[in-house]
Protein backbone atom coordinates (compact mmCIF):
# COMPACT_ATOMS: atom_id res chain seq x y z
CA UNK A 1 0.00 0.00 0.00
CA UNK A 2 1.07 3.58 -0.68
CA UNK A 3 -0.05 5.71 2.21
CA UNK A 4 -0.05 9.52 2.30
CA UNK A 5 -0.67 11.29 5.59
CA UNK A 6 -0.85 15.05 5.24
CA UNK A 7 1.78 14.85 2.50
CA UNK A 8 2.64 18.23 1.04
CA UNK A 9 5.24 19.85 -1.17
CA UNK A 10 6.01 23.55 -1.46
CA UNK A 11 8.45 25.30 -3.76
CA UNK A 12 8.87 28.61 -2.00
CA UNK A 13 5.44 30.26 -2.10
CA UNK A 14 4.08 27.74 -4.60
CA UNK A 15 2.03 24.91 -3.06
CA UNK A 16 2.63 22.11 -5.54
CA UNK A 17 0.78 19.67 -3.30
CA UNK A 18 -1.35 20.73 -0.35
CA UNK A 19 -1.61 18.39 2.68
CA UNK A 20 -3.07 15.19 1.27
CA UNK A 21 -4.30 11.94 2.82
CA UNK A 22 -4.65 8.97 0.50
CA UNK A 23 -4.38 5.16 0.46
CA UNK A 24 -3.47 3.37 -2.72
CA UNK A 25 -3.91 -0.43 -2.69
CA UNK A 26 -3.04 -3.11 -5.22
CA UNK A 27 -4.47 -2.62 -8.70
CA UNK A 28 -4.26 0.21 -11.18
CA UNK A 29 -4.82 3.62 -9.59
CA UNK A 30 -5.31 6.59 -11.89
CA UNK A 31 -4.04 10.00 -10.88
CA UNK A 32 -5.96 12.46 -12.96
CA UNK A 33 -5.66 16.21 -13.17
CA UNK A 34 -4.84 19.12 -15.44
CA UNK A 35 -1.26 20.25 -16.05
CA UNK A 36 0.19 21.77 -12.89
CA UNK A 37 -2.19 19.86 -10.60
CA UNK A 38 0.63 18.24 -8.59
CA UNK A 39 0.53 14.73 -10.09
CA UNK A 40 4.22 14.59 -11.01
CA UNK A 41 5.19 16.03 -7.64
CA UNK A 42 3.26 13.29 -5.85
CA UNK A 43 4.72 10.56 -8.08
CA UNK A 44 8.27 11.87 -7.58
CA UNK A 45 7.89 11.86 -3.81
CA UNK A 46 6.73 8.23 -3.94
CA UNK A 47 9.63 7.42 -6.28
CA UNK A 48 12.14 8.78 -3.70
CA UNK A 49 13.40 11.45 -6.10
CA UNK A 50 11.85 14.40 -4.29
CA UNK A 51 11.68 14.96 -0.53
CA UNK A 52 8.32 16.09 0.89
CA UNK A 53 7.90 19.45 2.59
CA UNK A 54 5.44 18.15 5.16
CA UNK A 55 3.46 15.12 6.24
CA UNK A 56 4.60 11.63 5.40
CA UNK A 57 4.43 9.01 2.71
CA UNK A 58 5.11 5.30 2.98
CA UNK A 59 5.44 2.82 0.14
CA UNK A 60 4.76 -0.76 1.31
CA UNK A 61 5.62 0.39 4.83
CA UNK A 62 8.87 2.14 3.90
CA UNK A 63 9.51 5.86 4.18
CA UNK A 64 11.17 7.32 1.04
CA UNK A 65 13.27 9.73 3.07
CA UNK A 66 14.57 7.24 5.65
CA UNK A 67 14.62 4.05 3.57
CA UNK A 68 14.89 5.06 -0.08
CA UNK A 69 16.82 1.95 -1.12
CA UNK A 70 14.16 -0.38 0.32
CA UNK A 71 11.58 1.34 -1.89
CA UNK A 72 13.85 1.46 -4.94
CA UNK A 73 14.30 -2.34 -4.71
CA UNK A 74 10.61 -2.86 -5.42
CA UNK A 75 10.06 0.12 -7.68
CA UNK A 76 9.52 0.49 -11.41
CA UNK A 77 9.39 4.12 -12.43
CA UNK A 78 8.67 5.84 -15.71
CA UNK A 79 9.16 9.58 -15.22
CA UNK A 80 7.18 12.10 -17.21
CA UNK A 81 10.33 13.47 -18.79
CA UNK A 82 11.89 10.13 -19.68
CA UNK A 83 15.14 10.03 -21.63
CA UNK A 84 17.66 7.31 -22.37
CA UNK A 85 21.42 7.69 -22.73
CA UNK A 86 21.93 8.70 -26.37
CA UNK A 87 25.17 6.72 -26.63
CA UNK A 88 23.45 3.43 -25.90
CA UNK A 89 21.41 1.12 -28.07
CA UNK A 90 17.97 -0.01 -26.89
CA UNK A 91 19.16 -3.38 -25.59
CA UNK A 92 22.25 -1.83 -23.99
CA UNK A 93 20.10 0.69 -22.18
CA UNK A 94 17.97 -2.08 -20.67
CA UNK A 95 21.14 -4.01 -19.73
CA UNK A 96 22.47 -0.92 -18.00
CA UNK A 97 19.24 -0.34 -16.06
CA UNK A 98 19.24 -4.05 -15.12
CA UNK A 99 22.72 -3.54 -13.61
CA UNK A 100 21.46 -0.50 -11.67
CA UNK A 101 18.55 -2.61 -10.43
CA UNK A 102 21.02 -5.26 -9.27
CA UNK A 103 19.39 -7.93 -11.44
CA UNK A 104 21.23 -11.18 -12.08
CA UNK A 105 20.86 -12.82 -15.49
CA UNK A 106 18.44 -10.24 -16.90
CA UNK A 107 18.81 -11.33 -20.56
CA UNK A 108 15.63 -13.48 -20.77
CA UNK A 109 13.63 -10.68 -19.18
CA UNK A 110 15.10 -8.08 -21.51
CA UNK A 111 14.33 -10.27 -24.53
CA UNK A 112 10.75 -10.75 -23.33
CA UNK A 113 10.21 -7.02 -22.74
CA UNK A 114 11.72 -6.06 -26.09
CA UNK A 115 9.40 -8.52 -27.75
CA UNK A 116 6.35 -7.48 -25.71
CA UNK A 117 6.80 -3.83 -26.63
CA UNK A 118 7.72 -4.40 -30.27
CA UNK A 119 11.29 -3.22 -29.86
CA UNK A 120 13.16 -6.40 -30.85
CA UNK A 121 13.86 -5.17 -34.38
CA UNK A 122 15.25 -1.85 -33.17
CA UNK A 123 17.07 -3.18 -30.10
CA UNK A 124 20.47 -2.79 -31.79
CA UNK A 125 19.76 0.77 -32.88
CA UNK A 126 20.89 3.77 -30.87
CA UNK A 127 18.10 5.31 -28.83
CA UNK A 128 18.66 8.65 -30.57
CA UNK A 129 17.09 7.11 -33.68
CA UNK A 130 13.92 6.10 -31.78
CA UNK A 131 10.59 7.83 -32.34
CA UNK A 132 8.74 9.31 -29.37
CA UNK A 133 6.55 6.21 -29.17
CA UNK A 134 9.52 3.82 -29.24
CA UNK A 135 11.25 5.81 -26.52
CA UNK A 136 8.12 5.68 -24.38
CA UNK A 137 7.93 1.90 -24.87
CA UNK A 138 11.59 1.61 -23.94
CA UNK A 139 10.78 3.66 -20.86
CA UNK A 140 8.00 1.35 -19.72
CA UNK A 141 10.26 -1.65 -20.46
CA UNK A 142 12.95 -0.35 -18.13
CA UNK A 143 10.31 0.34 -15.48
CA UNK A 144 9.13 -3.28 -15.68
CA UNK A 145 12.60 -4.79 -15.42
CA UNK A 146 12.86 -6.87 -12.27
CA UNK A 147 9.08 -7.30 -12.06
CA UNK A 148 8.60 -4.51 -9.53
CA UNK A 149 5.87 -4.66 -6.90
CA UNK A 150 5.21 -0.96 -7.26
CA UNK A 151 4.97 0.69 -10.64
CA UNK A 152 4.80 4.48 -10.95
CA UNK A 153 4.09 5.67 -14.46
CA UNK A 154 3.87 9.36 -15.20
CA UNK A 155 2.08 10.41 -18.38
CA UNK A 156 2.94 7.21 -20.23
CA UNK A 157 0.74 7.88 -23.25
CA UNK A 158 1.90 11.44 -23.98
CA UNK A 159 3.33 11.53 -27.47
CA UNK A 160 1.93 8.15 -28.48
CA UNK A 161 -0.21 7.76 -31.59
CA UNK A 162 -3.78 6.42 -31.14
CA UNK A 163 -2.79 2.85 -32.03
CA UNK A 164 0.09 2.85 -29.56
CA UNK A 165 -2.13 4.37 -26.87
CA UNK A 166 -4.73 1.65 -27.36
CA UNK A 167 -2.02 -1.02 -27.17
CA UNK A 168 -0.60 0.58 -24.06
CA UNK A 169 -4.01 0.64 -22.35
CA UNK A 170 -4.48 -3.06 -23.06
CA UNK A 171 -1.13 -3.74 -21.52
CA UNK A 172 -1.92 -1.60 -18.44
CA UNK A 173 -5.11 -3.54 -17.81
CA UNK A 174 -3.05 -6.72 -17.40
CA UNK A 175 -0.60 -5.10 -15.03
CA UNK A 176 -2.67 -4.71 -11.87
CA UNK A 177 -3.25 -7.88 -9.88
CA UNK A 178 -1.07 -8.02 -6.80
CA UNK A 179 0.99 -5.08 -8.02
CA UNK A 180 0.45 -1.43 -7.11
CA UNK A 181 0.31 0.59 -10.31
CA UNK A 182 -0.05 4.36 -10.16
CA UNK A 183 -0.82 5.92 -13.51
CA UNK A 184 -0.57 9.68 -13.68
CA UNK A 185 -2.23 11.22 -16.69
CA UNK A 186 -4.38 14.04 -17.95
CA UNK A 187 -6.13 11.73 -20.45
CA UNK A 188 -9.48 10.72 -18.98
CA UNK A 189 -9.84 7.90 -21.54
CA UNK A 190 -6.69 6.22 -20.20
CA UNK A 191 -8.11 6.17 -16.69
CA UNK A 192 -11.59 5.11 -17.84
CA UNK A 193 -10.11 2.18 -19.74
CA UNK A 194 -7.61 0.90 -17.20
CA UNK A 195 -8.12 2.02 -13.60
CA UNK A 196 -9.98 0.40 -10.71
CA UNK A 197 -9.75 3.56 -8.63
CA UNK A 198 -8.73 7.12 -9.27
CA UNK A 199 -7.76 10.34 -7.55
CA UNK A 200 -8.35 13.77 -9.04
CA UNK A 201 -5.86 16.49 -8.28
CA UNK A 202 -6.47 20.13 -9.04
CA UNK A 203 -4.04 22.93 -8.17
CA UNK A 204 -2.34 20.78 -5.55
CA UNK A 205 -5.54 19.61 -3.88
CA UNK A 206 -6.94 16.10 -3.99
CA UNK A 207 -10.58 16.80 -4.80
CA UNK A 208 -11.77 13.23 -5.33
CA UNK A 209 -10.69 9.68 -4.71
CA UNK A 210 -12.77 6.59 -5.27
CA UNK A 211 -13.90 4.47 -8.19
CA UNK A 212 -14.62 5.89 -11.64
CA UNK A 213 -18.21 4.63 -11.30
CA UNK A 214 -18.73 6.54 -8.02
CA UNK A 215 -17.46 9.71 -9.66
CA UNK A 216 -19.87 9.24 -12.56
CA UNK A 217 -22.74 8.55 -10.15
CA UNK A 218 -21.97 11.72 -8.25
CA UNK A 219 -22.88 13.77 -11.33
CA UNK A 220 -25.79 11.69 -12.58
CA UNK A 221 -28.79 13.93 -13.25
CA UNK A 222 -26.64 17.03 -13.62
CA UNK A 223 -25.35 16.63 -17.16
CA UNK A 224 -27.38 17.85 -20.12
CA UNK A 225 -26.92 17.91 -23.85
CA UNK A 226 -28.22 20.43 -26.32
CA UNK A 227 -27.79 20.78 -30.05
CA UNK A 228 -27.36 24.33 -31.31
CA UNK A 229 -27.03 25.60 -34.90
CA UNK A 230 -23.45 26.34 -35.86
CA UNK A 231 -24.22 30.04 -36.42
CA UNK A 232 -25.52 30.50 -32.84
CA UNK A 233 -22.99 28.25 -31.13
CA UNK A 234 -20.49 30.90 -30.10
CA UNK A 235 -23.02 33.31 -28.65
CA UNK A 236 -25.00 30.66 -26.76
CA UNK A 237 -21.99 28.89 -25.26
CA UNK A 238 -20.73 32.28 -24.08
CA UNK A 239 -24.06 32.76 -22.30
CA UNK A 240 -23.76 29.38 -20.56
CA UNK A 241 -20.21 30.19 -19.48
CA UNK A 242 -18.60 27.85 -16.97
CA UNK A 243 -21.38 25.29 -17.15
CA UNK A 244 -20.21 24.05 -20.57
CA UNK A 245 -18.34 20.76 -20.24
CA UNK A 246 -17.56 19.91 -23.85
CA UNK A 247 -18.56 20.70 -27.38
CA UNK A 248 -18.49 18.55 -30.47
CA UNK A 249 -19.42 19.16 -34.08
CA UNK A 250 -22.34 17.21 -35.55
CA UNK A 251 -22.99 18.03 -39.25
CA UNK A 252 -24.11 21.71 -39.30
CA UNK A 253 -24.74 21.90 -35.56
CA UNK A 254 -22.77 21.74 -32.35
CA UNK A 255 -23.64 19.36 -29.56
CA UNK A 256 -22.90 20.95 -26.23
CA UNK A 257 -22.76 19.05 -22.94
CA UNK A 258 -23.25 21.20 -19.91
CA UNK A 259 -24.17 21.14 -16.23
CA UNK A 260 -27.24 23.36 -16.62
CA UNK A 261 -30.72 22.53 -17.91
CA UNK A 262 -31.17 25.07 -20.70
CA UNK A 263 -33.88 25.51 -23.34
CA UNK A 264 -33.95 22.53 -25.70
CA UNK A 265 -31.54 20.40 -23.64
CA UNK A 266 -32.12 16.89 -22.33
CA UNK A 267 -30.49 14.99 -19.51
CA UNK A 268 -27.82 12.47 -20.50
CA UNK A 269 -25.86 9.83 -18.65
CA UNK A 270 -22.52 11.39 -17.72
CA UNK A 271 -19.28 9.87 -18.97
CA UNK A 272 -16.16 9.82 -16.82
CA UNK A 273 -14.92 12.82 -18.78
CA UNK A 274 -18.14 14.74 -18.02
CA UNK A 275 -17.87 13.86 -14.34
CA UNK A 276 -14.18 14.81 -14.22
CA UNK A 277 -14.76 18.16 -15.92
CA UNK A 278 -17.84 18.85 -13.76
CA UNK A 279 -15.76 18.11 -10.68
CA UNK A 280 -13.06 20.55 -11.74
CA UNK A 281 -15.69 23.23 -12.42
CA UNK A 282 -17.50 22.70 -9.12
Amino acid at each position, binding site marked *: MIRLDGLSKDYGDVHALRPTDLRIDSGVFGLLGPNGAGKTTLIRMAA*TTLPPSGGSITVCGHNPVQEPVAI*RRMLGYL*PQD*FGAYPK*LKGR*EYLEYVA*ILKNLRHPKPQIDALLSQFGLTDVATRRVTTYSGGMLRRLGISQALLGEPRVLLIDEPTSGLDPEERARFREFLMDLGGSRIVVLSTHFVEDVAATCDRLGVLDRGTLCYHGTPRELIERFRGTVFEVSVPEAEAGERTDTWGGSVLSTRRDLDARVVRLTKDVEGSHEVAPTLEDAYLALLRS
Partner: protein
Amino acid sequence: MRKHFFYEMRLAVHPAIWLLPIALAILRVVTGGSLERVLVFFEFVYPLLFPIAVISLLRRERSDRTFEVLVATPHRKTPVLLARLVGVMLPLFCAVAATVSPGNWLSVLAPGVLLAMLALVTGLVWKDEIGLAVPLGWWAVSFAVSFTQMTWGHHAVGSWFILFLLGSGLSPEAILWRKLGHLAVAAMLLSVSLLMAETWPRSASPRRHRTS
Protein backbone atom coordinates in the same frame (compact mmCIF):
# COMPACT_ATOMS: atom_id res chain seq x y z
CA MET B 1 30.94 -5.33 -11.88
CA ARG B 2 33.29 -5.12 -14.86
CA LYS B 3 30.38 -4.68 -17.22
CA HIS B 4 28.98 -1.91 -15.05
CA PHE B 5 32.31 -0.11 -15.01
CA PHE B 6 32.51 -0.42 -18.79
CA TYR B 7 29.05 1.13 -19.15
CA GLU B 8 29.90 3.99 -16.80
CA MET B 9 33.11 4.73 -18.70
CA ARG B 10 31.14 4.84 -21.93
CA LEU B 11 28.53 7.15 -20.46
CA ALA B 12 31.09 9.46 -18.84
CA VAL B 13 32.69 10.95 -21.94
CA HIS B 14 32.49 11.02 -25.69
CA PRO B 15 35.22 8.79 -27.15
CA ALA B 16 36.38 11.77 -29.23
CA ILE B 17 38.01 13.22 -26.11
CA TRP B 18 40.72 10.58 -26.55
CA LEU B 19 41.83 12.44 -29.66
CA LEU B 20 43.29 15.09 -27.34
CA PRO B 21 45.98 12.92 -25.66
CA ILE B 22 46.66 11.12 -28.93
CA ALA B 23 47.14 14.38 -30.81
CA LEU B 24 49.35 15.77 -28.05
CA ALA B 25 51.43 12.60 -27.96
CA ILE B 26 51.97 12.82 -31.71
CA LEU B 27 52.84 16.51 -31.38
CA ARG B 28 55.34 15.70 -28.68
CA VAL B 29 57.04 13.06 -30.80
CA VAL B 30 57.07 15.31 -33.86
CA THR B 31 58.55 18.26 -31.93
CA GLY B 32 61.06 16.05 -30.16
CA GLY B 33 59.74 16.87 -26.69
CA SER B 34 59.95 20.61 -27.15
CA LEU B 35 56.45 21.02 -25.66
CA GLU B 36 58.21 21.23 -22.30
CA ARG B 37 59.29 24.73 -23.27
CA VAL B 38 55.71 25.95 -22.98
CA LEU B 39 55.12 24.23 -19.65
CA VAL B 40 53.85 27.43 -18.01
CA PHE B 41 51.23 27.70 -20.76
CA PHE B 42 50.03 24.15 -20.01
CA GLU B 43 49.96 24.94 -16.30
CA PHE B 44 47.48 27.72 -17.10
CA VAL B 45 45.39 25.97 -19.72
CA TYR B 46 44.97 22.39 -18.51
CA PRO B 47 43.23 23.21 -15.20
CA LEU B 48 40.40 24.81 -17.16
CA LEU B 49 39.52 21.50 -18.80
CA PHE B 50 39.02 19.58 -15.57
CA PRO B 51 36.10 21.48 -13.98
CA ILE B 52 34.44 21.88 -17.37
CA ALA B 53 34.60 18.11 -17.89
CA VAL B 54 33.22 17.37 -14.41
CA ILE B 55 30.34 19.83 -14.69
CA SER B 56 29.43 18.52 -18.14
CA LEU B 57 29.23 15.09 -16.51
CA LEU B 58 26.67 16.31 -13.95
CA ARG B 59 24.82 18.42 -16.46
CA ARG B 60 24.46 15.71 -19.11
CA GLU B 61 22.55 13.48 -16.70
CA ARG B 62 19.83 16.10 -16.59
CA SER B 63 19.96 17.31 -20.17
CA ASP B 64 19.56 13.71 -21.40
CA ARG B 65 16.61 13.36 -18.96
CA THR B 66 18.14 10.20 -17.52
CA PHE B 67 18.54 11.46 -13.97
CA GLU B 68 15.18 10.42 -12.54
CA VAL B 69 15.54 6.80 -13.61
CA LEU B 70 19.11 6.61 -12.30
CA VAL B 71 18.01 7.98 -8.93
CA ALA B 72 15.09 5.60 -8.57
CA THR B 73 17.25 2.48 -8.96
CA PRO B 74 18.53 0.70 -5.85
CA HIS B 75 22.19 0.67 -6.96
CA ARG B 76 24.49 2.79 -4.80
CA LYS B 77 25.29 6.09 -6.45
CA THR B 78 28.84 6.44 -5.04
CA PRO B 79 30.42 3.84 -7.38
CA VAL B 80 28.43 5.27 -10.28
CA LEU B 81 29.84 8.74 -9.66
CA LEU B 82 33.35 7.42 -9.01
CA ALA B 83 33.43 5.34 -12.20
CA ARG B 84 32.19 8.29 -14.24
CA LEU B 85 34.81 10.56 -12.65
CA VAL B 86 37.49 8.09 -13.67
CA GLY B 87 36.03 8.07 -17.16
CA VAL B 88 36.21 11.85 -17.37
CA MET B 89 39.61 12.33 -15.74
CA LEU B 90 41.53 9.53 -17.42
CA PRO B 91 41.79 11.12 -20.87
CA LEU B 92 42.78 14.41 -19.25
CA PHE B 93 45.51 12.68 -17.20
CA CYS B 94 46.70 11.01 -20.38
CA ALA B 95 46.76 14.38 -22.14
CA VAL B 96 49.04 15.73 -19.39
CA ALA B 97 51.20 12.59 -19.46
CA ALA B 98 51.52 12.89 -23.22
CA THR B 99 52.61 16.52 -23.04
CA VAL B 100 55.00 16.99 -20.15
CA SER B 101 57.67 14.85 -18.53
CA PRO B 102 56.79 12.89 -15.35
CA GLY B 103 58.73 15.36 -13.18
CA ASN B 104 56.28 18.10 -14.11
CA TRP B 105 53.04 16.11 -13.96
CA LEU B 106 52.26 17.28 -10.46
CA SER B 107 52.61 20.96 -11.39
CA VAL B 108 50.12 20.64 -14.22
CA LEU B 109 47.72 18.10 -12.70
CA ALA B 110 47.33 19.44 -9.15
CA PRO B 111 45.45 22.66 -10.04
CA GLY B 112 43.26 20.79 -12.50
CA VAL B 113 42.31 18.08 -10.04
CA LEU B 114 41.70 20.65 -7.32
CA LEU B 115 39.40 22.74 -9.52
CA ALA B 116 37.60 19.60 -10.75
CA MET B 117 36.84 18.44 -7.21
CA LEU B 118 35.74 21.94 -6.21
CA ALA B 119 33.41 22.00 -9.22
CA LEU B 120 32.04 18.61 -8.23
CA VAL B 121 31.28 19.55 -4.63
CA THR B 122 29.79 22.95 -5.45
CA GLY B 123 27.88 21.42 -8.36
CA LEU B 124 26.37 18.78 -6.10
CA VAL B 125 25.59 21.19 -3.26
CA TRP B 126 24.18 24.01 -5.37
CA LYS B 127 23.79 23.82 -9.10
CA ASP B 128 25.91 23.30 -12.17
CA GLU B 129 26.37 26.98 -12.97
CA ILE B 130 27.78 27.66 -9.49
CA GLY B 131 29.83 24.49 -9.76
CA LEU B 132 31.52 25.95 -12.79
CA ALA B 133 31.65 29.59 -11.65
CA VAL B 134 33.50 28.95 -8.36
CA PRO B 135 36.52 27.07 -9.81
CA LEU B 136 36.68 29.35 -12.84
CA GLY B 137 36.67 32.34 -10.50
CA TRP B 138 39.57 30.85 -8.56
CA TRP B 139 41.37 30.14 -11.82
CA ALA B 140 40.85 33.76 -12.96
CA VAL B 141 42.15 35.24 -9.69
CA SER B 142 45.19 32.94 -9.78
CA PHE B 143 45.81 33.85 -13.39
CA ALA B 144 45.59 37.56 -12.62
CA VAL B 145 47.95 37.24 -9.65
CA SER B 146 50.46 35.20 -11.65
CA PHE B 147 50.21 37.42 -14.69
CA THR B 148 50.69 40.67 -12.77
CA GLN B 149 53.20 39.02 -10.46
CA MET B 150 51.61 40.43 -7.31
CA THR B 151 54.00 39.93 -4.46
CA TRP B 152 51.36 38.76 -1.93
CA GLY B 153 50.49 35.96 -4.23
CA HIS B 154 53.94 34.45 -4.28
CA HIS B 155 55.65 35.13 -1.03
CA ALA B 156 52.98 35.14 1.64
CA VAL B 157 50.30 32.78 2.90
CA GLY B 158 48.43 33.77 -0.23
CA SER B 159 50.79 31.69 -2.35
CA TRP B 160 49.01 28.57 -1.06
CA PHE B 161 45.86 29.80 -2.78
CA ILE B 162 47.51 30.51 -6.11
CA LEU B 163 47.18 27.71 -8.62
CA PHE B 164 50.02 28.63 -10.98
CA LEU B 165 53.45 28.74 -9.43
CA LEU B 166 55.94 27.70 -12.11
CA GLY B 167 56.84 31.28 -13.02
CA SER B 168 56.53 32.59 -9.48
CA GLY B 169 60.15 32.53 -8.40
CA LEU B 170 59.35 30.20 -5.51
CA SER B 171 61.86 27.42 -4.89
CA PRO B 172 61.05 24.03 -6.46
CA GLU B 173 60.61 22.63 -2.95
CA ALA B 174 58.10 25.36 -1.99
CA ILE B 175 56.19 24.75 -5.22
CA LEU B 176 56.13 21.01 -4.54
CA TRP B 177 54.64 21.56 -1.07
CA ARG B 178 51.96 23.84 -2.40
CA LYS B 179 51.05 21.47 -5.20
CA LEU B 180 50.84 18.59 -2.72
CA GLY B 181 48.65 20.81 -0.58
CA HIS B 182 46.35 21.35 -3.56
CA LEU B 183 46.14 17.60 -4.12
CA ALA B 184 45.38 17.00 -0.44
CA VAL B 185 42.51 19.48 -0.58
CA ALA B 186 41.31 17.84 -3.81
CA ALA B 187 41.34 14.43 -2.09
CA MET B 188 39.32 15.87 0.78
CA LEU B 189 36.78 17.40 -1.62
CA LEU B 190 36.56 14.09 -3.49
CA SER B 191 35.79 12.29 -0.22
CA VAL B 192 33.07 14.81 0.57
CA SER B 193 31.56 14.48 -2.90
CA LEU B 194 31.55 10.68 -2.70
CA LEU B 195 29.81 10.88 0.66
CA MET B 196 27.29 13.21 -0.90
CA ALA B 197 26.80 10.97 -3.91
CA GLU B 198 24.20 8.84 -2.13
CA THR B 199 22.12 11.95 -1.63
CA TRP B 200 23.10 13.30 -5.04
CA PRO B 201 19.50 12.98 -6.19
CA ARG B 202 18.19 15.21 -3.44
CA SER B 203 20.89 17.82 -3.67
CA ALA B 204 20.57 17.86 -7.44
CA SER B 205 16.78 18.08 -7.57
CA PRO B 206 15.99 20.50 -10.35
CA ARG B 207 15.24 23.99 -9.11
CA ARG B 208 13.20 24.74 -12.20
CA HIS B 209 10.57 22.08 -11.88
CA ARG B 210 7.30 20.99 -13.29
CA THR B 211 4.41 20.87 -10.88
CA SER B 212 2.00 18.82 -12.95
